[in-house]
């Protein structure tokens, strides 16, 4: 296939991945990598490098909007970034050494988990009455705007949130994704943050985490400019449009259909991985 045609098709696919990724909350990276590997036969190492830069672009581009709404908690974000950036270093270290079949297998499993997490409704659990003393010492408890005025929240289980964030960072560095689903686990389930706060804070962290591993990928020659160009521009345009449509559209049917597609892609990647390993 000539470069011109390939670039056009990848740009369109990346646009769709960014759009659907942002509408469904899965993120662009989780969608673009199976599209490139399963759909276009691209080596997964090229796909991961290209996806990683698109993850930085979407996260940083959306930061201004999230900040204006006043949901993000910069102290929680910065503290947990110690865990995610260290994890990202480990992830990139593993990515340079693991066989691609193993990476494909892990990706497939993470994809199924992500689709499952994003298909469930997110609700705030009961408020935490007594915060983790560590959270108080780290001044993490905060407040955010709601319809009924400013609402205060306390933060629970800082150590387990920190540990899960290390896992999220490792997966991000290994697979070239934002690992939104594991961050939800850490911040919603363990630390019990209101989900609007955790969504905004997670977006804040994704760009910094991805930058830690993207630098390594670039230096190691894993980022191919001819592929990264249409992927980055396409995902950025698609996710910007998707974020605008998010509040207008009823996404429940879309989530189901899309969840089924993701599931099939995940099985394909697990199959590829197992075939390569056995």
């Amino acid at each position, binding site marked *: 296939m000539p470069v011109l045609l390939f670039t056009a098709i990848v740009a369109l696919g990346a646009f769709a991945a960014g759009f659907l990724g942002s509408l469904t909350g899965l993120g662009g990276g989780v969608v673009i990598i199976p599209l490139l590997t399963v759909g276009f036969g691209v080596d997964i190492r090229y796909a991961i490098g290209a996806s990683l830069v698109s993850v930085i672009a979407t996260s940083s581009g959306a930061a201004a909007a999230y900040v204006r709404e006043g949901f993000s908690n910069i102290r929680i974000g910065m503290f947990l970034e110690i865990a995610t950036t260290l994890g990202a270093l480990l992830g990139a270290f593993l990515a340079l050494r693991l066989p691609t079949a193993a990476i494909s297998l892990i990706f497939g499993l993470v994809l199924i988990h992500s689709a499952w997490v994003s298909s469930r409704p997110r609700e705030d659990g009961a408020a935490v009455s007594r915060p983790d003393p560590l959270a108080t010492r780290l001044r993490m408890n905060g407040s955010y705007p709601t319809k009924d005025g400013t609402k205060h929240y306390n933060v629970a289980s800082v150590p387990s949130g920190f540990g899960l964030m290390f896992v999220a960072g490792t997966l991000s560095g290994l697979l070239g994704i934002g690992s939104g689903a594991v961050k939800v686990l850490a911040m919603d389930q363990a630390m019990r943050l209101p989900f609007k706060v955790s969504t905004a804070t997670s977006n804040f962290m994704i*760009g910094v985490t991805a*930058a830690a591993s993207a630098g390594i990928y670039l230096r190691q020659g894993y980022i191919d400019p001819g592929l990264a160009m249409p992927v980055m521009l396409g995902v950025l345009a698609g996710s910007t449009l998707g974020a605008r449509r998010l509040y207008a559209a009823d996404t429940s049917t879309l989530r189901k259909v899309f969840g089924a597609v993701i599931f099939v892609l995940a099985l394909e990647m697990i199959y590829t991985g197992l075939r390569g390993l056995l």
Partner: protein
Amino acid sequence: MARKLMDQEIEVTIGQLLRAGVLSSAAVVAAGGVLYLARHGLAAAEYSVFTRQPPELSGAAGIFRCAFALHGRGLIQLGLLMLIATPIARVVFSVFGFLKERDWLYVAVTLVVLAILLYSLING
């Protein structure tokens, strides 16, 4: 509450800087893309076999040289380098934000994050 407001003010500025960083790097990537496609658009695309990029497209010095010689792929890599620098710049600005608030604990936390990022860029 005063602290929260200050946080917000700093954060809004940082958010705008981030967007400017993303847009300018996207513009450089797009410009490089046009040059790349004009020169190599009819070649065959080959991504099923993995080969590492040569040093002039993976190290900072080589990327700058290629970009200033107006090589399409060099320009794309320069745009991507700017993109990777954008969240790192954000962390640097956060250090100043916390310094301004005299929040020494978080100055230290932010410096640790910055050190990890710089380590990954230099030694990764």
